[in-house]
């Protein structure tokens, strides 16, 4: 019984810890400063919502996410399906190599690609020069989104591929045998059987990718020294950092953090509901 209480009390303690953190945020968001206890009401939130820097950052990140999430998960799905086909050569080598970027910190990934984007180092610039062309500046204007998205895609594809691949492996072989007996081609099997059967894990990878993407921080921060076009408030999270620790306005930063979290959860749960209703529709058809 004592141990039961211990097991019981311990998680409650964590829960208390968690809820404490939440309460802290709300209190701060509403302006309970340590020195000046001024009731700010929703002022911080209205400030944040009308702050053009934050909104611009949000738009930038949405644009960035619109590239990253579909490309990364599309690639992950295709690679997982390929891995799951018969007679693949060097399969475990490929699997390991594609998974490898997961082990590389975002900062280092951004650093490596950042150098590879620089015309003086880039192999692509070298090749283009060979045919008399010059490489466009990848770290400015629209290509910057592609450059940043590439880093995220590179880092995330392998992990998502493994998640999808593992659930592909869980499909019983008999299903395929039946399909083959009915005359399905491998492509048909992939499209009609495999993809619908791994739909739940696809939904989940989408869900986590959205959350991760909207909070991009390390990569643009790392690229900042290499280019002038990444501002200190490029992503909303960078803006939070800027407000909290450079400007020292923790109340504004807390309100912004709450807003980002709310927006993230709204978007990802919105997607989840959409996906759920789709699957139900599909099932009833």
């Amino acid at each position, binding site marked *: 019984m004592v141990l*039961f209480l211990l*097991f*019981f009390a*311990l*998680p*409650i303690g*964590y829960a208390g810890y*968690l*809820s404490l*953190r939440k309460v802290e945020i709300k209190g*701060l968001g509403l302006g309970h400063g340590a020195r000046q206890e001024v009731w700010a009401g929703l002022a911080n939130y209205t400030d944040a919502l009308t702050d053009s820097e934050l909104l611009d950052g949000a738009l930038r990140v949405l644009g960035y996410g619109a590239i990253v999430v579909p490309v990364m998960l599309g690639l992950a799905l295709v690679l997982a399906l390929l891995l799951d*086909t*018969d*007679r*693949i*050569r*060097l*399969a*475990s*080598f*490929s699997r*390991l*190599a594609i998974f*490898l970027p997961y*082990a590389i*910190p*975002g*900062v*280092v990934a951004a*650093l*490596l690609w950042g*150098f*590879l984007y620089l015309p*003086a*180092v880039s*192999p692509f610039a*070298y090749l283009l020069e060979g045919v008399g062309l010059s490489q466009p500046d990848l770290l400015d204007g629209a290509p910057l989104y592609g450059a940043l998205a590439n880093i995220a895609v*590179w880092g995330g*594809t392998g992990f998502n591929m493994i998640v999808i691949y593992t*659930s592909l*492996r869980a499909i019983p*072989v008999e299903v*395929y*045998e039946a399909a*083959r007996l009915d005359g399905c081609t491998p492509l048909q099997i992939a499209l009609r059987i495999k993809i619908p059967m791994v739909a*739940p*894990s696809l939904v989940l990878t989408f869900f986590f990718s959205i959350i991760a993407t909207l*909070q991009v921080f*390390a990569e643009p*921060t790392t690229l900042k*020294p290499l280019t002038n076009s990444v501002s200190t408030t490029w992503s909303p999270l960078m803006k*939070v950092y800027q407000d*909290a620790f450079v400007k020292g306005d*923790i109340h504004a930063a807390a309100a912004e*953090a*709450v807003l*980002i*979290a709310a927006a*993230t*959860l709204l978007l990802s749960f919105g997607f989840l509901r959409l996906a759920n209703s789709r699957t139900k529709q599909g099932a009833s058809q």
Partner: protein
Amino acid sequence: MTAVAVRKSAPAAGSTPGTAQGPPRRPRRSRAGLLPSAALLLGAAYCLLPVIWVVVAATKGSDELFSTFTFLPGTGFADNLGDLTAYRDGVFWQWMVNSGFYAGCGALLSTAVSAVSGYALAMYRFRGREALFNILLAGVLMPPVILAVPQYLLLAKVELTDSYLSVLLPLILSPYGVYLARIYAAAAVPADVVEAARMDGAGEWRIFTRIGLPMMVPGLVTVFLFQFTAIWNNFLLPYIMLGDDEKFPITLGLFTLLAQGSNQPSLYTLVITGALLAVVPLIALFLVVQRFWSLDLLSGAVKS
């Protein structure tokens, strides 16, 4: 269709390249696997490209870095290594040690906490269990940013910021780790075995350490690896918490080095060599323990 059910053996055959080809009397089928293999290798090449580059670039001296072809090895690896070690009296190695400390201790502690609470959540029925689990689930989904700022403020109140503890403490409780541990405990530890042990008069703690824990080991290895990687790769938390660069983990250290490099381009070679060295331990860890990864846990987590 000539295809037979060789599906499950195909990936295993791939691990020994020499035997991966189909039987020679059926060349048609082995050609069919060629295109997917090539596509996969292309993907692998894309993923390896920056890694190969950093290996090559780390051998270049600062005069060679921007002047020679990207994948042409240079001659300055030993010099780079020496410069890096000499940089600010070996602060780089201090960063590596710090990262190892944060990741090692943090992952160990949070795996232990995850094991105990995951086991408790899976094995005991008590009031508020579901509520607790839902709070945990919310924790998994909670963006870390919303925690980082208040964590800093809370720790500032007890004057713990800019210390080793400030990076370690917030990482000990990992909702994701607890979540995985609960799923694994529920799947791996049969309730009737626990019941039988209880009948035999074993105490709850004894049941946990003697029966539950050994059964959970494969799952806990996965949790440990997840945590280790997450902490080693973490940037935001130390970036917020730490000011003294003696306590920096490697990610933060490399970042400051790169930021200084925009004024002193000669530091770039140090950054690149440092990046290579920062990646080596994790890759080595993955290669060594990949056999113990319980990847089914991932899809198990996905399914529920």
